[in-house]
Every structure is written in C-alpha cells, then in structure tokens.
C-alpha cells in the first residue's frame, strides 16, 4: 500500500526519525482471534529513537472517546437546528435538511463510535493499568510524542516549513520538528503479533 510519512528531526543535533515506523499490521494475539494494537509514536529511552508504541485503552482514552462522541452528537443537534432555522416553512416540511457540514459530522460520529467500541472491546483483554511498551524492543521507558498539529494531518495542506512538535529531544535539549517528506512509499506489510502484555512473539 502507498503511505505518506513525516520526517521528525531535532533542532540541535543530527537526530532524525520518521512517522512511517508505526505503519503496519500490529496485532495482539488472542485465542479468539487477533485484535489490532492502537499505536502512537513515542521516544524510547532504550532504543534512543522514535518508535511505535502501544496506546493502551486507559480510562483517559475511553473518556476522550466518550467526550468526543458526546460533542459530535451535540454538534449534530445544533447544526440540524441551525439548518432548520434557515429554511422556509414549506421546505422544512417537504424536504430533508442537507448540509455538507452535517454530513461530515455524521460520518465522523460513525468513526468515533466505532473507535469507542474498539476501545471498550480491547479493555476486556488488556491490562490497561500497566505501562505501555515500545513495540520495537518491549521497553516501558517511553514518552509519547505529541500528536501532529492539525495542519499536518494531510500532505495536501501541510506547510512546507517544518513545524514544532511541542517536545524536547530527551538528553539533548533541542526541539523536535516535523515536516512531510513528500514521498509516498509503496510498502507491503506483514503482520506483527504481540502478546496482550505487549511483548512481540517470534515470527
């Protein structure tokens, strides 16, 4: 599959990393079938580089998903009532309200709902009170990287200049910056299996 990636570098030293490390098929192996691992880019103190790490289905993550869903539902209500206010009596009576914003919100609601379901499902199997692990070496000495700014979500609108990520390079003091590398890679991924404790199983 073709994937875009973001280069991450330090402002004070030669360090570079990239977001492509978290692309792939990472699964927890369970007796009843595998479930995908939620991943986040992180700094691993053992690997001394940017790595994919587990994002455990913690209470906080669950709460964030719940709140996002609640916000979307309220927004859909509000958008709906705004559309109705702006329509004439007859059109309100005879046609369904259409709005691109409303459609986008409804699509997002579906995505967030399925995300929430996935979090709830994975909480049944995973001990989310433990520390998340580096999916490269299994170390728990990791620090999550901040999520990429919204303008970096798509290569189409991404700024050409590197943007600050909001995190210092551990042991160096420089700051991490991110920039789209402008190359789409065709990659074929193979499945990587992990135990529910986040330890990689031998291929």
């Amino acid at each position, binding site marked *: 599959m073709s994937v875009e990636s973001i280069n991450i570098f330090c402002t004070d030293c030669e360090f570079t990393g990239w977001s492509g490390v978290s692309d792939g098929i990472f699964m927890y192996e369970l007796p009843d079938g595998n479930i995908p691992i939620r991943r986040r880019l992180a700094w691993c103190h053992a690997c001394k580089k940017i790595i994919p790490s587990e994002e455990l289905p913690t209470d*906080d993550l669950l709460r964030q998903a*719940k709140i*996002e869903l*609640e*916000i979307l539902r*309220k927004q859909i209500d*509000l958008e709906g009532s705004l559309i109705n206010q702006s329509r004439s009596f007859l059109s309100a009576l005879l046609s369904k309200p259409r709005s691109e914003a409303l459609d986008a919100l409804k699509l997002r609601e579906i995505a967030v709902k399925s995300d929430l379901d996935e979090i709830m499902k994975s909480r049944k199997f995973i001990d989310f009170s433990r520390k998340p692990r580096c999916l490269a070496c299994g170390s728990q000495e990791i620090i999550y990287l901040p999520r990429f*700014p919204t303008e970096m979500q798509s290569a189409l609108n991404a700024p050409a200049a590197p943007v600050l990520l*909001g995190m210092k390079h551990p042991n160096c003091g420089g700051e991490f910056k991110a920039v789209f590398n402008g190359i789409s890679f065709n990659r074929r991924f193979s499945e990587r299996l992990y135990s529910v404790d986040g330890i990689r199983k031998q291929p």
Partner: protein
Amino acid sequence: MKTTKDQTWLVHMQTGRILEDINIGNYRMVFIKVTQQSSFIHYHYRLIAFPRGSSEPILSLNLESNPMARTLCLGAHLPEGHDNLGFVDENMSEGAFRTWAFDIAKKYLGLTQSPPSTPIGGIRISDDDDQLIGHMHTSTADSFHDIGSKLLELPAPGAVTDYARAHLLEATTPNVSNAWTYEVPALSRYAKNEGKRSLFGRDKGKMAFRKLAEDLYLVVLGLYGDKLLTQGASTDECLLALLHSLVSFKEAYPNWTDAYSVAYRLFVEERDIIKIILAKHQRSVEAKLY
C-alpha cells in the same frame, strides 16, 4: 548561578493565583495555580524555587499538560533543561501535587527543612526574603471581574479576525474553540432579542436565553474534553475556565462585541444564574464520563 531556561514562569506568577509563598532553607518557594496559559504546554500548578536574593528561578516543578498530545505530566524545569518526571492521572489534586512537588524540591535542592503540612494561604507582599510583613488575599470574585473586564474592551478600529490566534486556539483547545463558534452567536442572538416580544406575545429574550443556556452544555463538554476541567471541579472553577476560554476566543474573533458584553453581564455580574446552569451541565457531563 545557573537558572532555568523556562520563560513562562513570570507571566504565570503575574497572572496566576499564588497559593503559597514561603522560605525554606536558602530558597523562596512559590506555589501557584496557573490561570493564564502562555505557551503550547499548559501548566496547572507550579512550585517555583528562587535562591535567596535572586529574582530568577533555579527550579520549577509543574503539573503540565500538552493539549495536542493530550497527556498530563509532572515536569521539572532545571538549569539543564526540561525533564519529564512521569505521567499522572488527570484527577491529581492540588494537595497531592503540593506534597509531590515539595518532596521532589527537597531532593533537587538538598533541603533538610520541610514545608508546613498545610498550605499558608495568601500572597506575600514583602520583598524582604526573611520576613513576612503582610498577606493580600485574593478572591475568586476579583478573578471573575479581572478576566471578565477583558470582554468589555472594545476592539481596535478596523480589527478583524486574527487568524494566527484562531489557528492556535483550534490547535490547543479544539473542543472549546469549536463550542464557542456556536455559543457566541447564541449570545449575540440573546443580546438582540432581550426584552422583545413576538407578535403573539412570546418572550423572544427568554427563548434566546433558554437556547444559550442549553448550548452552554457544549462549552462545558469542551472544557472537559480539552482538559481545562477535571472531575470534581467546582462551579467557580468551571466558570473561570469558561471565562478564560471566552477571552481567548475574543482575542481571535474580536468583532462580536454585543455577544461579549452580554457575556460579561451574564457570566460575571449576574453569574449566580449561570452557575446553576453550569452545575447542572457539569453533573451531566461527569455522570457520562466518570
């Protein structure tokens, strides 16, 4: 003597609530609750240590969050840079942070003396490091008026939307900023309809107020979603956070003057009614989330 590289402590001390200002050993320790954010990292509580006779800090221990990463951490600003001392649960209380911070400060600074077991309230207004000569107590009522008065400031002639600020707001507090895009027009509608009646005698102002009170739910949700509020926050804290976020929104979108002036009246002068509404929304949000 080397000092921390952090630049934000001064703004936080000037704008925040100083909860404690005491001397321990050769250091002046200032414990503050941050009320105005000034960087991409949001600070909630800070314990800042100044060597005696110095106006620059040598250590700052912080409860800090990164709105983009959605993480809450314990951090330390040292002369060598910033250290992340671990993630914490978002319910960390003021008391728990104080205990942690004084413990860590003792280790970093090699202090033998302990802080008082309970906080000494008030702001020291002496510049003499050895002697406390008085306390100036702050109250939340002052804070409401101080923050709220910014809503009444008129925009400069020709002021337009500050897109850079709007963008920053969306990046740091996306949920609240989004909520205000609904609530500010609702405030404006209320300002327009207050005291008016429809042809059939319906009170248009009352209807507009009901709508804006209902829509405040989205703002309260946003405050929790952006981690500006945590479980068990008081209604006063909720209203303060709401006012701060509205002031930030106003800085980005300065031209809804009617909405901001009515917000000042409702959220500051006649805040008792809004507090009841906020309490109801808070209860509802917390019941769904916790």
